[in-house]
């Protein structure tokens, strides 16, 4: 099987996010970057599937600046076979449609059975790119996957929907987006880290993949802001019975919920 997995480096999820002076971008100077949390489930699934299907090749791809290469090195250390870096300094400004167009154009002349993503990237939090890529390539898709198995050319997967699990069947090639619970992502091995250090990371530019004229963006950032900090209100410390009485009063008189 040919498996492609798309990964993205994002600000450390523990970090506070500040807005830069333009008011349209986040300030990146003081933050470290990490693999987007859901992407790790996608990478792990690619590796598990490759281990179960002899002769499979897993290719990890990222779009981003030079710094994003580290992410590919980390994935080599985990065991992916090939990596491709699509170089762009503008990536942080691309919307989902633009990103999906680049990915679809990249995949168009490749042979692929499965294309894996995290179900959303920490950042725009949109969950758009996997579905958009499936639409542009006109292939099957299953999103928010928490369990999957392959037999022949078909994929059977469970996905989480509100209050239910939906069992989907799809034909390959298929786009899959991973949800937490799909697997337990592995750590990098020391041996893997050493081997990955020596590997060349092939880099191409966005222009090699798709003419820039085709990258019209669907949405435009008008402004970013940090939400107004919520202030703490009253606090009660005392006997549980009294605490419950106070709370009940608050829920009844203030919130009017009981």
């Amino acid at each position, binding site marked *: 099987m040919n498996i492609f997995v798309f990964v993205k480096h994002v600000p450390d*999820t*523990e970090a506070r*996010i500040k*807005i830069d002076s333009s008011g349209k971008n*986040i300030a990146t100077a003081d933050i470290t970057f990490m693999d987007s949390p*859901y992407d790790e489930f996608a990478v792990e699934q690619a590796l598990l599937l490759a281990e179960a299907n002899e002769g499979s090749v897993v290719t990890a791809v990222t779009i981003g600046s030079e710094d994003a290469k580290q992410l590919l090195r980390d994935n080599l250390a985990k065991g992916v076979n090939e990596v491709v870096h699509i170089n762009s300094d503008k990536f942080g400004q691309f*919307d*989902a*449609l633009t990103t*999906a167009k680049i990915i679809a154009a990249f995949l168009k002349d490749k042979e692929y059975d499965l294309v894996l993503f995290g179900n959303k990237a920490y*950042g*725009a*939090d*949109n*969950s*758009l*790119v996997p*579905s958009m890529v*499936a*639409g*542009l390539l006109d292939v*099957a*898709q299953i*999103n*928010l996957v928490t369990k999957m198995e392959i037999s022949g050319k078909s994929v059977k997967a469970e996905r989480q929907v*509100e*209050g*239910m*699990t*939906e*069992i*989907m069947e*799809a*034909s390959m090639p*298929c786009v899959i987006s991973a*949800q937490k*619970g799909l697997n337990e992502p592995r750590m990098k091995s020391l041996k893997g880290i050493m081997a990955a250090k020596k590997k060349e990371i092939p880099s191409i530019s966005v222009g090699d993949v798709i003419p820039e004229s085709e990258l*019209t963006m*669907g*949405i*435009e950032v*008008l402004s970013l802001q*940090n*939400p107004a900090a919520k202030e*703490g209100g009253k*606090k*009660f*410390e005392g006997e*549980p019975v009294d*605490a*419950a*009485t*106070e709370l009940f009063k*608050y*829920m*009844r008189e*203030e*919130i009017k*919920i*009981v």
Partner: protein
Amino acid sequence: MSNILVFVETRQGKIRKSSLEAITLAKKIGSKAIALVVDADADKIATELKEYGPDAVYTVKGIKNYSPDAYREALSAAIEKSGAKIVLASQTAMATDFIPAAAAKLNAGMVTDALEVKIDGGKVVTRKPIYAGKVLADYAINSDIAFVTIRPNVYPAESAASSPAVEELAVSIPVPKAEAKETKSASDELDVSEADVIISGGRGVKGPEGFEPLKELATLLGGAVGASRSAVDSEWISHQHQVGQTGKTVSPVLYVACGISGKIQHLAGMSSSKYIIAINKDAEAPIFDIADFGIVGDLFQVLPELTKKVKEVKG
């Protein structure tokens, strides 16, 4: 002003409540609200929709099981027929599954999980939380057709009687590339993303059985049970319940955080709740910084007392 097409989600013959919210919003900002219903029983659904005031209802009856590619065809046919320049839906697993594919096919921009949608200078402008709620972004959608999904519970559904024309669309349904074969109901539990009241537990709940008092109160109040990442990672409760960074971002009327310390990743997912109550033994827990009402105490002592009082009035 433009026609707005609203995708009305149904599951097992029932309209999703949050789809009605999308109709209400469409009526506010558009000139005409046209509802699309994909369901074998679409006529019955169309009758139910009358109370919420759509100007027209399109029905597609030929799709047996949910399939992202078949639904995409139905939506594309409805967009063409309606001439809609805005496509609205509630932020659900189904809507975010097939609608982006339709948007990309039309070279259109899309914003998901919007908290606010308006038309400004002829453009659709939306506000949405990014970085798991740490930042609010205002976006203008520049493409010819704008696609938006709105977060449930933000625009309350308002009844408005109408007598819409109901029209069945002729859609050539493709052989599905992906299709739902069955659904397993975990339970009839309300999903946290749609609940008005969330009783949420963290590390302080101490184990799976510790969620029982939370469930009892949630059921009494018609709400849902939420959880912090550490409770989910400890396997005390399933990931469906997780609120915060790697879970769901929620905006209920009331969020009760029980034994949740309040890490930034959790706060990002729930700080837009209208009222926040926190119960925690640790008086220094960061959750108290954003709680409207904080109780320093043991949740296992306070909650049962509170439940007792709620029972007396809900009897």
